[in-house]
C-alpha cells in the first residue's frame, strides 16, 4: 500500500508538469480534478481504515475532484474562453523551471528530518514540488482562471504535506481548512464572474489600473 502511495505521489508530480505544459484551460481543470481525486485516495492508503478516514476521503474527493473543478469550468464556459494566451513565460521554459523545481524540492527535503515511519516516502518532496508548481502557475499565467488553478495546485501541495499529519491532527482543523478552501474558491468564482462581466474578459493583465504612476 505504501508503495502505491509513493507511485501516486509521483503521478501528482507528473500532473504538475502537465499543467505547466498545457495551454488549454479545460485540460488544466481536469488535471487539477484528477490531482484532487488522487489526494483524496492517498489518506486511505497510508492510514488504517476508520470511519473518520472514510468521511475525509469522500469529502476531499467531492470537494477537490468534483465541486471545485465544476465551479471553475462553469466560469470558463460562461466567459467563453478556451486557452491561456501568451503566458508571461513560455510553456517550454516554465516546464523546464518546473522540472528544476521538482529536483530542488528533492534536495530540500533531504535536509529535513522525518519520523521513521515517513522516512522512505515522497510526501515532502511531492508537497514542495506541488507548492512550487502552484507558485509558478500563479506567477506566469495571465488569465484569472489560470491563477485560480495555480492557487488550487498550491493548496494541493500543502494538502499533501498535511497528509503526514492527518492522523495526529484533530479533524476539526482539516475540516475548517477544507471549508475555507471551498468558500475561498467559491468567492473567487463569483469574483471571476464579476470580472468577466466588468471587463468582458478574465485576462488579469487588464486588471492593472490600480498601480503607482
Amino acid at each position, binding site marked *: 500500500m505504501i508503495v502505491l502511495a509513493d507511485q501516486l505521489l509521483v503521478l501528482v508530480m507528473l500532473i504538475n508538469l502537465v499543467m505547466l505544459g498545457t495551454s488549454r484551460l479545460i485540460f488544466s481543470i481536469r488535471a487539477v480534478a484528477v490531482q484532487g481525486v488522487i489526494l483524496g485516495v492517498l489518506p486511505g492508503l497510508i492510514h488504517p481504515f476508520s470511519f473518520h478516514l472514510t468521511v475525509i476521503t469522500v469529502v476531499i474527493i467531492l470537494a477537490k475532484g468534483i465541486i471545485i473543478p465544476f465551479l471553475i469550468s462553469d466560469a470558463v464556459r460562461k466567459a467563453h474562453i478556451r486557452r491561456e494566451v501568451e503566458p508571461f513565460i513560455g510553456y517550454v521554459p516554465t516546464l523546464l523551471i518546473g522540472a528544476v523545481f521538482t529536483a530542488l524540492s528533492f534536495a530540500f527535503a533531504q535536509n529535513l528530518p522525518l519520523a521513521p515511519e515517513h522516512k522512505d516516502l515522497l510526501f515532502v518532496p511531492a508537497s514542495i514540488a506541488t507548492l512550487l508548481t502552484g*507558485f509558478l502557475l500563479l*506567477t*506566469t499565467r495571465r488569465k484569472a482562471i489560470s491563477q485560480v488553478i495555480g492557487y488550487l495546485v498550491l493548496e494541493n501541495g500543502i494538502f499533501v504535506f498535511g497528509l503526514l499529519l492527518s492522523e495526529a491532527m484533530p479533524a476539526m482543523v482539516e475540516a475548517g481548512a477544507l471549508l475555507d478552501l471551498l468558500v475561498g474558491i467559491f468567492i473567487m468564482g463569483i469574483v471571476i464572474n464579476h470580472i468577466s462581466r466588468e471587463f468582458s474578459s478574465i485576462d488579469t493583465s487588464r486588471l492593472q489600473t490600480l*498601480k*503607482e504612476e
Partner: protein
Amino acid sequence: MFSAVDPTIYLLAAATLMALSGVPGLALNRPAWGQHLAAFLVVVAAFMGEYAAVALLTGSPGVTYQVDWPLPFGPALLSADLLSVIFLMPLFLVAGCVSVYSVAYWPAHKHASAGKLTLFLGIFAASMVIVVMARNSVLFIMAWEIMALSAYFLLTSEQQNPDVQRVGIVYLFATHTGSMALFAMFSLLREATGTFAFPLSHSLSLPVTVAAVVIITALIGFGGKAGLMPLHYWLPGAHANAPSHVSAMMSGVMLKMGIYGILRTLSFFVGVPAWVGWLILLLGAWSAINGIAMAAGQRDLKRLLACSSIENIGIIFIGIGLALVGVQLHAPYLVVCGLFGAFIHIINHGLFKSLLFLGSGVLIHATGTREIDRMGGLARRMPITSPLFLIGSLAICGLPPLNGFVGELFLYVGAISDGIIAPLPLAALVAPVLALVGGLAVMTFVKLYGIIFLGAPRSDAAAHGHEATATMTAPMFLLATGCLAAGMVPVLLVRLVSPVVAFYGDVAAPALARITSRVPIVPLTIVNILLVVLVAVIGAAYLLRLRRLPRAQGSTWGCAYPVPTPRMQYTGTSFSEMMVNLLGAIVATNRRRPTLATAFPAAGTRFSYTLTETVLDRILTPVFAGVGLAFSYLRRVQHGQLHIYVLYIFATLCVLIIWPH
C-alpha cells in the same frame, strides 16, 4: 517676603491658566467675549509668572515637582532653576503683551480663525513654560513638540493662502527633522544615564564619539529651532507669513527655546569638548553676518525682521561660544562676559523684536501690505507707533542709549580683554565681526524706518494709513519702555542676569563682581544721561532759535526739478541695491533687469531683485526634486501586475530560507 508660597507652583498655575485660556472662547457663542477673557487670563498668568520669576531670581528656592504619570519613562519632573527663569521672564512679558494686542489685531468679528488662534496661542505659551521647566526628557520632548505644532497652527492661521501653506510645510519639515535629531539625542542620553530624567548639571562624562553625537544632534535639533545657520531656512518665510503677534511670540520667545535647549544640554557635561565652543562661535558669527546681510536686501517688512532674528540669534550664539571657549582657555572674562552678553541679549531681543513685530502688525493693519516699497510717510499718520518703532529700530541696531548696546558691550569687552591676550586670540575677531554686523544693522533699519515712516506716501494705502487703537499700542509702549529703561540704566539688566550667570557659569560672586566691574555699566548710565541732557539742551536751544527766526514751508528740494512726485523717492529696493551688490559673495540675488532700447526707459519698466534663500532654493529644493524623481522610479515596483506580486511573496520566502540561520 517670597517665602510663603513656593514660586514654582505659580509657574505651573500660570502655564495651566494660559493653556486653558482659549477654551472658554470655544464654548461661548460670543467669540469676542472669549477673546477678551483669554487675554485677561493670559495677563493674569503673565503677572503670576513674572512674580514667580522675580522670586526665584531673588533667591527663593525652587521646588521640584514630581508627577508619577503612567508612561514608561519614569516620573515627570518639573522645576525651575535660574536658567529657566531667564527664559521665562521674556516669555511671560511677551505673552501678556501679545494676548492684549491680539484682541484688536485679530478680532473675532473679522477673522473666523480667531477662536482657534486664541486657543493655540495659549497652548503655545504654556508649552514653552513646560519646556523650560521639564526635567524629564520625554516630558521635554512632548512639550517641545506641542510648542512646535501649535506654532504651526498659529502660523497657518491664514491657511487659504498658498504662500502660507508653503511656508507651513517648510516649517513642519524643519521642525520635524529637528525633533528626530532630538529623539536620537535624548535616547543616547538615556542610554548613557540609564534614566529618562535629565542628568544633573556637570555630571555627565561620555565617550568622545557619543558626546560628539549628542552635541551635534542637539545642535541640529535645537539650533534648527533657534534659526542657526544653515538650519534657518524655515525662519524667514514662517515669520513673514504668520500673523504679526504670532511672529512676535515666535521670534521673541520660541527661537530662544532652541537656545535654552543647547544651554541645558551643554550644562549636563562635566567638560564640553574643546571644538564645541569654536563651532558654536563660528556658527554664531556666520548666522549674524549672513542673517543681517539677508535682512539688508529684503523688501518685505516681516521677512526683514525675520532675517534680523537670525542675526540676533547669531549674536547670542557668539556669546555662548565665547563662554565655552573661555572655559576651555581658562579665561574667566571670556566666560563671564560671553554669558552676560548672551543672556542679556536673550532678554533684549525678546523686548525689541516683539516690539518691532507688533509694530509691523500695526503697519499691515493700516496699509494692508508687507511691502515697504509701498509704504512711506506714515510717521505723520501714526504719531504713536512711529516713535515706538524707532526705539525698537535703534535698540536692534545696538545703539546707545538703548538696551541692544548693553549685550553687545559685554561681548566686545569679553572679546577684547581676554580674547585678545589668549594664546589663540581668534576670539578677538568677534569684535570686527560685531562691528560689521552693527554697521549692516544700521543700514538695514535706517532703510526700514526711513522708507516706511518717512518721506511721502508711495501708495494710496499708505496715504490713508491710520493709527492703531490703544489695545495695540499699549503693549508696544510697554515693550518700548522696557527697551529704554534697560538701555538707560543697564545696571537693571546686569542685576537681573548676574545670578543666572553665576549659576550657569559656576562663577563665584567675588570673581563675578571683579569681572563685571571692568564692564562700564555705571559710566554707561552717566554717558546715557549726559547724552539725553545734551540732546535736550541742544534741542531746546534749536527750537528756541527756530521760534525767533522766520520759517517757511516748501516742497522738498528736487535739485531744480520743479514737480517731484512720491514715486521719485528712493525705495527700499534702491536703498539697499548697492549693499546687496557688495554682499554678492554672501547672499545671492536674483535680478530682473529691464532691457533698455532708448535713452529713456519706457513706461512700466521695472528693475527689481529678490534674495535667493540659498539653503532652501539652492540646496533643499533641488534635493527634494531629485529624491522625488528617484522615488518615482522606485514606485514602479507597485505596477499592478498580480503575478509579480505573487513573485514577491515567493522571493521573500526564498530569501528567508537562504538567510543564514
